[in-house]
């Protein structure tokens, strides 16, 4: 499968060059995907799909354009190559744009589980049904609203006119459950999720139980009074915040004046407790790959150590503009868009305290288990945010009443400087990209309720 894709990527490059491009890069994807939704003990929907496509980035010296298509025949590839070259004609020149100087591939282990293919549809349906049963088994659960199992299995290939051509296969599987506990105005929802390379990595009982336990612990939540207090973010919430911060470390955001960390490289921006790295070489990270979206070898990139911001994330264009080297951070979300700078797997180094110990250390405060509106609620330039939250009050070091309709407000800079401890229970979370997150204890935040 990969060899054909590599050939398609190469032919797309040739087509762009034939259409007049000075340089070109072709990216091809092929895959099968399955999604199973169950409801009330039966299959609600079952989706089986095959897809393939190609995207071409064409350069006319310092101008670049992009085109994509689903037709991988010679004539289809020819059309895409020509369309990319045509598109480049309307762009203004950017002297820093172009193919990367150095390409390569890192050793990342096997990113594909054969079990995605070996598991029959019936076994996958059973996995989803089992997660639903596990959630339903909880006495407080009034409804299991959504149970989804999904997997993807495919290959990606990249080729460019400097002679780079490579490909890799990868797979992923994930499942999530959304359960309700309580009735009427006491009703609250809870999410449980798991992810891995294949269905064998998912524990349906744990996923269902997590959804049930989360919903049950929030049922009957009320709006509390406003306060300033220590706040514990559980791993799912911490992942959302870390993913957001990771996005602001993109050199593209920095160079476009859209990052509050713009002039902070090398400076102390966080407490020493929080250590962050971007690592696309982890075999269990779902955004891992041997090379990035423009063929630069992947690596582990420490971002935050001893409280210091060590580097931004660079692709070849932002690196040239800054007089630096690419960090292998060109991300591809699909063949439908050109590569853009971003995090791959954002990894928070776990600490030593369990969630229970973080709650005990907080004393009197708030455990946040869900936030709403993070992306609209944060000002990317000032970093101030005010987001909706739900969770549990903490009283005397123990979890107390569930709370809802609250906002937590702070700014990202103060937040990073108030990380008092990082929890030991790290997990992969697919929010804000691929994040291996751990709970965080923050010294103080403004919590506004009634």
């Amino acid at each position, binding site marked *: 499968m990969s060899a054909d894709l590599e050939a398609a990527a190469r032919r797309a490059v040739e087509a762009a060059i034939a259409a007049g491009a000075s340089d070109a890069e072709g990216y091809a994807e092929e895959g099968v995907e399955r999604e199973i939704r169950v*409801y009330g003990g*039966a*299959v*609600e*929907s*079952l*989706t*089986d*799909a*095959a*897809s393939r496509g190609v995207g071409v980035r064409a350069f006319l010296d310092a101008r*670049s*354009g*992009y*085109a*994509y*298509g*689903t*037709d991988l025949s010679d004539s289809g590839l020819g*059309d895409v190559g020509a*369309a*990319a070259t*045509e*598109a*480049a*004609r*309307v*762009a*203004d020149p950017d002297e820093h744009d172009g193919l990367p100087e150095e390409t390569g591939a890192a050793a990342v282990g096997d990113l594909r589980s054969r079990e995605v293919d070996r598991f029959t549809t019936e076994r996958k349906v059973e996995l989803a049904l089992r997660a639903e049963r596990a959630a339903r088994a909880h006495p407080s659960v009034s*409804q299991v*609203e959504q149970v989804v199992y999904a997997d993807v299995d495919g290959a990606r290939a990249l080729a460019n006119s400097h002679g780079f051509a490579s490909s890799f296969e990868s797979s992923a599987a994930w499942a999530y459950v959304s359960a*309700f506990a309580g009735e009427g105005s006491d*009703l*609250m*929802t809870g999410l449980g999720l798991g992810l891995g390379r294949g269905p064998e990595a998912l524990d349906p009982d744990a996923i269902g139980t997590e959804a049930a336990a989360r919903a049950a612990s929030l049922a009957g939540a009320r709006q509390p009074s*406003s306060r300033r207090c220590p706040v514990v973010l559980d791993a799912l919430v911490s992942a959302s915040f870390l993913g957001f911060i990771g996005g602001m470390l993109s050199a593209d955001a920095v160079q*476009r*004046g859209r990052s509050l960390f713009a002039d902070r490289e090398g400076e102390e921006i966080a407490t020493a407790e929080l250590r962050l790295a971007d690592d696309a070489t982890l075999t269990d990270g779902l955004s891992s790959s041997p090379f990035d979206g423009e063929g630069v070898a992947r690596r582990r990139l420490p971002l935050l150590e001893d409280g210091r911001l060590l580097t931004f994330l660079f692709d070849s264009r932002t690196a040239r503009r800054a007089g630096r080297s690419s960090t292998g951070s060109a991300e591809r979300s699909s063949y*439908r868009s*050109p590569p853009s700078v971003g995090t791959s797997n954002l990894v928070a180094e776990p600490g030593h305290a369990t969630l229970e110990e973080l709650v005990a250390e907080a004393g009197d405060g708030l455990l946040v288990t869900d936030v*709403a*509106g993070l*992306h*609209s*609620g944060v*000002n990317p*330039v*000032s970093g*101030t945010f*005010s*987001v*909706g939250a739900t969770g549990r009050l903490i009283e005397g070091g123990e979890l107390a009443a569930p709370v*809802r*309709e*609250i*906002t937590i*407000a702070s700014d990202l800079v103060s937040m990073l400087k108030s990380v008092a401890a990082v929890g030991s229970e790290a997990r992969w979370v697919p929010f804000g990209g691929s994040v291996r997150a751990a709970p965080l204890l923050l010294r103080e935040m*403004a919590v*506004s309720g*009634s």
Partner: protein
Amino acid sequence: MTLLDPALAQRAIERALRRGGELAEVYAEDRRGFGLTLDDRRVERPQSGRELGASVRVVSGESSYFGHVDGLAEEDLMRVADSVAQAAGAPASPGVRLEPASGGSRHPVELAPEDVDAARKAELLRSCDETARSAGAEVAQVSVGYVEGRRVVEVYNSDGVAAADDRTRVRLAVQVVARRDGVVETGSETRGGHAGFELLVEHPEEVAAKAARTAVALLDARPAPSGPMPVVVGNAFGGVLLHEAVGHGLEADAVQKSASVYAGKLGEAVAPELVTAYDDGSRPGAWGSEGIDDEGTPTQRTTIIEEGRLTSYLYDLVRARKDGVASTGNGRRESFRHLPVPRMTNTFFAPGEATPEELIEGVERGLYAVSFGGGQVEPATGDFVFGVSEGYLIEGGRVTAPVRGATLIGNGLEALRAVDGIAGDLEIGTGYCGKAGQRVAAGVGQPHVRIGALTVGGTAA
């Protein structure tokens, strides 16, 4: 232009139903797009794409079996039909001969965007950039995005539906960042519709001017107040509140799973008598309009709230069948790669009698929320949080100072009950709505609306 031979569609449908099922459907799509952005005075990221593909669906009882493939080759389509033929039961026969797909009422496109030179689109972005920058020395950054898309779709099903649509949309979006003494504010404005490039021929730079005015005005913003207070919500994009806090709860999939606070409330008074609201996918040229929905049902105007009473949910074919009603033409999908689900089209409050000024005059101390940066709602409870991207204080019946950092926190049902004034200046904004992993164009709109009391989460001490 025809995508699929009706005879081929018929064969695929028969194949898909060979192990049973009540409904089988073939959906074919040819989608093309072009986009261009301007950032930091540079026209960049020109991008064009074309995708051709089809999907086959079988509905059997409560279950849907779905598959899709790139391209329209007969063997691929038949393979998908085989993969979805999973329903158990007696083989069903479509029993109807499918006619060639024919169109619903098309929304007029005067100037097909693909016939407009790319260089003219680049010039449009440059003129927006210049206009925004001329708004003052405080304007620090301008980004402009242009996107056009055309979707030619055909739907065939075993009930004899053979429908086609040809949808063209264009959208211009401008974002301006203004900076003064370390204070940074953003203003955004868009213009778009189910229409051609003609929408952007007359004074497109007004979009940029408005975004720039907002960004500069917000530089004088004070921290937002906190606590419960009357809120006047602006027209057009202010309708996001209705879309999120009410509309999603009326989508029949959420209702049938009792995952909506509006379940079981049909016929009940959910709002004061002055409130009437519609979902209207047939509104000419509006952003969320279409000739047919993605199951071949003609789009229509559905009254969702009539004089305060909840009158209808929003249905696709599957959910309508379950409730024994007709589809309201809300079965929408992002592309041939997605299952249709009940989705809003253009959702808005009907205009009232008041003027925006009158709504504001009645407020002693409150918030004027012109536009939202986005928000989130928990459909099961109706709880919502919205970030106010452009907001002003109302003091003594007058709009006084801009505020920053305001959020609206509340509950959809409670907010609806608290509506106490509606103006006559209805406008539809151009939103994108995400649901079930699918993003579709959704028109959000309303006239100015006043909510008697809503919790404002601000940052002021």
